[in-house]
């Protein structure tokens, strides 16, 4: 079976990892060392008392590469579980962005109108600036940011995605 050129696909991988020094470094080092993509990565402790963190990684590659990424993650000693949310049924993924717009006049009111349409909340306001908070799927955030670009967008801070399977399935 000669390898066929495979298409590149996106994947969201969740990793439950023992919360110990260096664990995140191992995950990131794995991606850089083996040349895998990281589109975004989030990490935070999730299980009180059990000392575990959840890492959500948005990545892309051929199906064979994605399979490798999972196998490589799974063999890290502090890793408890690895789940490919994209593969294993439907999932929801959200991220949050803080977007700063500096403008006045028509641009300023247009920015506010767009923010309203996206249900982004202004969480800081000054005479010449807004900071909007927007939560949603990555492409929604992308669209919002694109629309604000000509309207005085000066700074963006994004969290990267948090993802979880739909229904009763757990990691």
């Amino acid at each position, binding site marked *: 079976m000669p390898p066929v050129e495979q298409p590149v696909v996106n994947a969201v991988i969740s990793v439950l990892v023992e919360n110990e020094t260096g664990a995140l470094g191992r995950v990131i080092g794995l991606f850089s060392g083996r040349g895998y993509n990281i589109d975004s990565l989030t990490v935070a402790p999730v299980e009180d008392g059990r000392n575990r963190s959840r890492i959500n990684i948005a990545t892309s590659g051929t199906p064979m590469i994605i399979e490798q990424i999972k*196998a490589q993650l799974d063999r890290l000693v502090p890793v408890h579980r690895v789940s490919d949310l994209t593969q294993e049924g439907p999932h929801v993924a959200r991220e949050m962005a803080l977007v700063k717009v500096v403008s006045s006049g028509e641009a300023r009111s247009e920015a506010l109108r767009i923010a309203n349409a996206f249900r982004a909340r202004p969480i800081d306001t000054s005479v010449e600036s807004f900071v909007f908070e927007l939560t949603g799927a990555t492409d929604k955030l992308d669209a919002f940011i694109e629309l604000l670009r000509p309207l005085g967008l000066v700074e963006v801070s994004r969290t990267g995605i948090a993802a979880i399977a739909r229904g009763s399935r757990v990691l």
Partner: protein
Amino acid sequence: MTAHTAEAPRAQIDDSPITPTRNGAEVLIDVLVEQGVEVIFGYPGGAVLPIYDALFKQDRIRHILVRHEQAAVHAAEGYARSTGKPGVVLVTSGPGATNAVTGLLDALMDSIPLVCLTGQVPTHVIGSDAFQEADTTGITRPCTKHNYLVKSGNDLARVVHEAFHVATSGRPGPVVVDLPKDVVVAPAPYLSRPTRPHRSYQPQRTPDPAAIAEAVALLRTAERPLIYVGGGVINAGPEASAALRRFVALTGFPVTSTLMGLGAIDADDASFIGMLGMHGAYEANLATHGCDVLLNIGARFDDRVTGRLDAFSPDSRKIHIDIDPSSINKIVRVAVPVVADARLAIEALIDAWGEATPKPDIAPWWRQIDAWRAIDSLAISQPEGEDAVIKPQYAIRRLYEMTRASGRDTFISTEVGQHQMWAAQHFGFDRPNRWLTSGGLGTMGYGLPAAAGAQIAHPEALCIDIAGEASILMNIQELGTLAQYRLPVKIFILNNRYMGMVRQWQELLHGSRYSESYSDALPDFVKLAESFHAKGLRATKLGELDGVIAEMLAHDGPVVAEISVDEFENVFPMIPSGAAHNEMILGAAQSSQAAGITEEGMMLV
């Protein structure tokens, strides 16, 4: 890897968590003893002085002082590969740890179980660029299976036990434990080897019966089956090799082996068709190309083996048994993945196949293989006559024949280069764990310390490093270790006055421009040996070869035997980089073919 099962003497100390009375260094030694450690290869320095002090005060563990930390790791690898037990290394912080890095990566690539204890500056100065401080866990993270920085004495015993578990279970590999000086100086509690499974690390060992059934069903339909074994069979212990031999006898299937799997099956077994890959036998590579079912047991489809991937074994359905799920479908897509220990998987295959099942009729396939065999791709053309120049392949053949005639248990290590390939091609191994070579990293300088490590483990055995004149200089200082511990290691240098493997590639790919590959200003190896209290011997022509080998084997001490060989001999057969198995170059006459190597091929290593 079977974790060593020898009952370790229990340390005579209190298990309860009341105020510890022993310091971290002493507790460390107790843990090592409980883990069955008998030997440590190491080199002292400031950060590990308390550990050396604890070693001084006990007699349960032997310390072997090497002459360079890289050699400590290779010696531990030789010890580990030749015994199946983990090798243990102890080095100081900073330069001690960085010197060990090459050895660690070597062990990682070749799946060798090691525990490397590195000294570290005291916890309160970590991060301040203190004297001999290095970010050892940072540096070694991609060079180890796992590593630890022990920040508190309370963690010490647990972490060291865990390090042994991680190093020896699943796919074996090197584990670093970084020990700040204050942690080994302060009192620390002792903890016995844990009985509970690890929180997150639980490698799968037993095969899924459904996968085994699928594998057997596929094997039964095969008209042109081939078993391709690798280092994983060695990792799985001698019982895995025994099971493999039973399975081969049961099925009558041909077997090829990677460089790392040599000895898993007896080289003299009629079913063994030689090593495959870049410098593999003609019959092994053509069988790989032509088979219809390929059963990979503990091998990882390395690029030295597959050649051009889209032309690798194009017509076969593939079964892959590997303990590491990340080895499966990494390079070659397989039809039947089996995540398991090689021994358990082969035993399950035997059960599922049925001891009573008659051998399938694959006579036409064997006739084809025998026809390929008849080409005799490893034939040696040694000119006759006392004064004839010695062919390196012939020197290895004679070494093999004469050691075999001696009847002694023989361990062969190698350096890296042409001599390594000729050793793989012309030295036959009838048992596992007798062949110690750096396959994945290809580390020049591996062979001498590895032979020393094997000799420590097997004092009565014959341990020979087959070396090149360039490689041997990379860890030549270990002649001092041989002298100090009276290790009768034999160093058999095939001196072709070139970094032959480099020269061969330059000849084939770079218009014979031998850029910087000539071994100029070589030492007088005989005098060099003598200055290190070893015996030095030299053969410069055919008439001297057998005499030198005989004298080397007869001498009860370290020997350096320098064999001057033909300078321009190349390793054949060869699959040039970027080529397919059926595009093999058989000999010098054909090597102009290499000029046809594509630019893509030239970019490959």
